[in-house]
């Protein structure tokens, strides 16, 4: 890599699916602006680079690092610390880095159960019950693989984070807006927002961007959308008994799902000011159940068939409890 006057850019993926990288590439020709304005020094999905190359860079020599993925293993944690050390601006990019996302749902189970699921599944032949071992002695010496933590952590639970870009994945137009902002900052035309801010998203909730008609809510029945024959195209989904997470979810996506006739599942994370997304949403749903009879209320709640998935699909690792007791205790 040649020395360049251009500011340096990096992107890294920890425990994630790769969707965030696709979302960046999905900005189409905007990616050329990145190349024009930055020197890309480290981006495993897009170019070849070694960790030792990053280690060799001076501290704070990278202007901007977009870090996606949660912290699942010691390798993830080491890279989080490394990128923090080498970067001026470290951004938690996407739901996994911000709040744990789908990988964070593993926090409901202990490590043993997770390994059993992966290494003892019906489609796996593993008669010797082999499990990954952090260290394995071979004639040539000791082989090491990263250690698997019992609990998945979000990026800011491990290192100091400057900004958050939510979304699973972040919408491309929001990524483009952030790229534009950073370029303007580099050119001295704009100021960075306050540290700790959520960028590339709105401050209120998905309802703000949702065109559906909203009335006073009184819910007699929760129904999964796939079980309904008719969904009113103009009426608030929650009022139709479809458990839509829009009221607690941060705006910024443009209410894509509700506009397409599907309920919001909450991928943009909690709205500004919401501390525990799932708890907020649970009290909100419970508040609009239209019954005072305990048995009827139980029956209505039975319509929420997967409470953990409904309320904590994206944010379990960043919730107040973060993980189940057995996960915390497993080693």
């Amino acid at each position, binding site marked *: 890599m040649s020395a360049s006057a251009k500011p340096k850019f990096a992107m890294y993926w920890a425990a994630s699916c790769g969707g965030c990288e696709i979302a960046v590439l999905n900005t189409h020709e905007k990616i050329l602006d990145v190349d024009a304005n930055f020197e890309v020094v480290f981006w495993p999905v897009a170019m070849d680079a070694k960790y030792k190359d990053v280690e060799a860079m001076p501290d704070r020599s990278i202007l901007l690092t977009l870090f996606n993925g949660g912290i699942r293993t010691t390798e993830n944690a080491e890279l989080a610390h490394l990128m923090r050390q080498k970067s001026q601006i470290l951004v938690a990019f996407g739901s996994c880095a911000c709040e744990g996302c789908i990988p964070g749902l593993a926090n409901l189970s202990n490590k043993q159960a997770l390994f059993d699921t992966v290494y003892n599944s019906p489609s796996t032949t593993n008669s010797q019950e082999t499990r990954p071992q952090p260290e394995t002695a071979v004639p040539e010496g000791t082989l090491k693989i990263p250690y698997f933590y019992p609990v998945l952590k979000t990026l800011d639970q491990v290192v100091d984070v400057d900004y958050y870009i939510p979304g699973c994945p972040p919408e491309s137009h929001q990524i483009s807006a952030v790229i534009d902002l950073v370029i303007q900052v580099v050119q001295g035309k704009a100021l960075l927002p306050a540290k700790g801010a959520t960028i590339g998203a709105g*401050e*209120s*909730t*998905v*309802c*703000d961007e949702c065109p559906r008609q*909203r*009335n*006073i*809510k*009184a819910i007699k029945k929760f129904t999964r959308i796939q079980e309904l024959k008719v969904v009113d195209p103009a009426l*608030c989904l*929650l009022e139709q008994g479809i458990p839509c997470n*829009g*009221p*607690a979810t941060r*705006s910024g996506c443009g209410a894509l799902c509700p506009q397409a006739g599907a309920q919001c599942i909450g991928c943009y994370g*909690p*709205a*500004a*000011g*919401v*501390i525990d997304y799932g708890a*907020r*949403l649970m*009290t*909100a749903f*419970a*508040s*609009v159940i239209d019954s005072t009879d305990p048995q009827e209320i139980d029956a209505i709640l039975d319509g929420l068939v997967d409470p953990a998935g409904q309320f904590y699909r994206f944010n379990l690792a960043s919730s107040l409890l973060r993980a189940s007791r057995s996960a915390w205790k497993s080693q």
Partner: protein
Amino acid sequence: MSTEKTTPPSPETEKIGVYVCHCGSNIAGIVDVQEVAEWAGERLKERGVVVARDYKFMCSSLGQELIEKDIQEKGLTRVVVAACSPHLHENTFRTACGRAGLNPYLCELVSIREQVSWVHTDKDAATTKSKAVVSGGVERVIHHEPLEPLVVPIHPTTLVVGGGIAGIQAALEIADAGFPVILVEREPSIGGHMAQFDKTFPTLDCSACILTPRMVSVGSHPNITLLTWSEVTRVDGYVGNFTVTIRKKPRYINTQLCTGCGICQEKCPKKIIDDVYEAGLSYRKAVYTPFPQAVPKYPVIDRENCIFFQKGTCRACEKFCPTNAIDFSQNEEYMTIEAGNIILATGYDLFDPRRVTQYGYGRLANVFTSLEFERLSNSAGPTNGNIVLRDGVTPPAAVGIIHCVGSRDRNYNNYCSVICCMQGLKFAHLVKERTGATVYNFYIDMRTAYKAYDEFYQRVLEEGTLFVRGKVAEVTDAARLPGEDGKLIIQVEDTLAGIQRRIPVDMVILSSGLEPRHDAKQVAQLFGLSCSADGWYIEKHPKLDPVATMTEGIFIAGCVQGPKDIPSSVSQGAAAAARVLGRIQQEHIALEPIRATVDETKCSGCRICNNLCPFNAILFHADRNVSEVNPALCQGCGTCVAACPAGAISGTGFSNEQILAQIEGLLLLNLTPKYTLAAL
């Protein structure tokens, strides 16, 4: 809520005083209060604590002066008192802070009595927990904001719900003092249970003679608006400014024209068993007043039983009414009234003795309820006061009176119904006086507390009533021994004699207990009150505030609060009236400035909160697509704060910062170096 400080409060900027109360031995008996105070002074120094003391009774004037002196001399900016529940003394300590010039809302009361010493026996653990509780209070108080109370005017009108003796007393006291009262009664007449009695214990004065003058006063009082045959359906607002919706059931009588002459009742061809006033022992007509002395005097037409309403013909009453007062076209009406205070005196239901199947009520003809006996012995009742068996003619030769029916019994109600012993004694006296029959009273314990009650018991003893101490096992008509044929046999263990006895009698009277009204829970919900597990309404303090409730501006009187006799009901009616009058004369009331507010930038108008507010304080602005909380109506209950999915609503005094800081304090995450509870 303005604050002059530009930087948010922190342990560095604040000077916090911690005061740990012994509460005599209430707290100090379990918690090492001195150690808690020393620990707070030492370990919480870096969290802003500048002084920590323990004292025998913090609520005493000496204890309060301790706080005031420290505020003035040490310049305290926050105060934490570790003592009893905020229900009891929050106001005491806030006022003390206010006297010393500190905003009262910068004081936090944490409970180490109700939540620690009273619920633990392990002294070390209780002391450790107290430290954590104090630590939580210190972290929380840092985030308190100085607040000013909201002052609102008090509407001078009082709503009294329930026209029994307690409600009547309350209404008259307030009206006599010159303030307007609206009295709502769901039956056609006021009077309540007392109007059904013949004699009252222990003086045996005639119930009607002492009650009806009061009823007449209510009916004719210029300050009382009497709404009978009416029910409250909705209560909005808050202390000083309630808006109440009342449903007036149609009487089908034009009360402007009716003179109460009674011709309609005479001419009505339809007879119905009177289950309410006559306890099923007599008939009334489809158009009726419950009893001759009813107030108001106007009858009502019972739509369910009226031939015209059911079959479309008849109209006998209409034909004969001399003033054309019958009006079949009436519909139910809803009216809205404004009231500053509300007194609930909705009374009780009699325990239904059918539930005690072994006593045979409803199966054995000559088993009577206490209310049936009241009607039987009433000189204006169905038998003109003759005490006779169900056949209506035969006087009994032997009568058994069973106490504690449905009371003091795990199968029904654990509580003592208070009046049943005296009621049973009164029945014994009346039976003796009128029939000369042999009378047995079966009791578990004789409870004759209060003035002249025990003297009455002795009088009944001297009159020759026989007392058997024991809980009756069974009343049966299955004769087994000679002399039992055709009799009701009372099977009982005589616990004084230590033997099983079978006592044949002709008549059994069940001295039933009192129960909360069947709809007590719904009514409580309507008015925002809480019920005990038994269903009686909960007073603000069982000893010191028996007629107030936890809902400001709503008072309770009489049996709605728990079983009681007539003198106690009257006292409570008067007491509630005195409380209300005190309020009205103040003209204004200072309300807690604990309110919810909506951050409009965060509100997306999802409308989840819109239907939740018990005080109807939430407005939705369709034009701006946001919801707003009206601070004049908000009572700070926090329902909407909890429900808001966007976190756009916050409650003063219960902000996220305050609650999370308190949790961190409780978990001792505020200490450096980090300590765990076990290491304390």
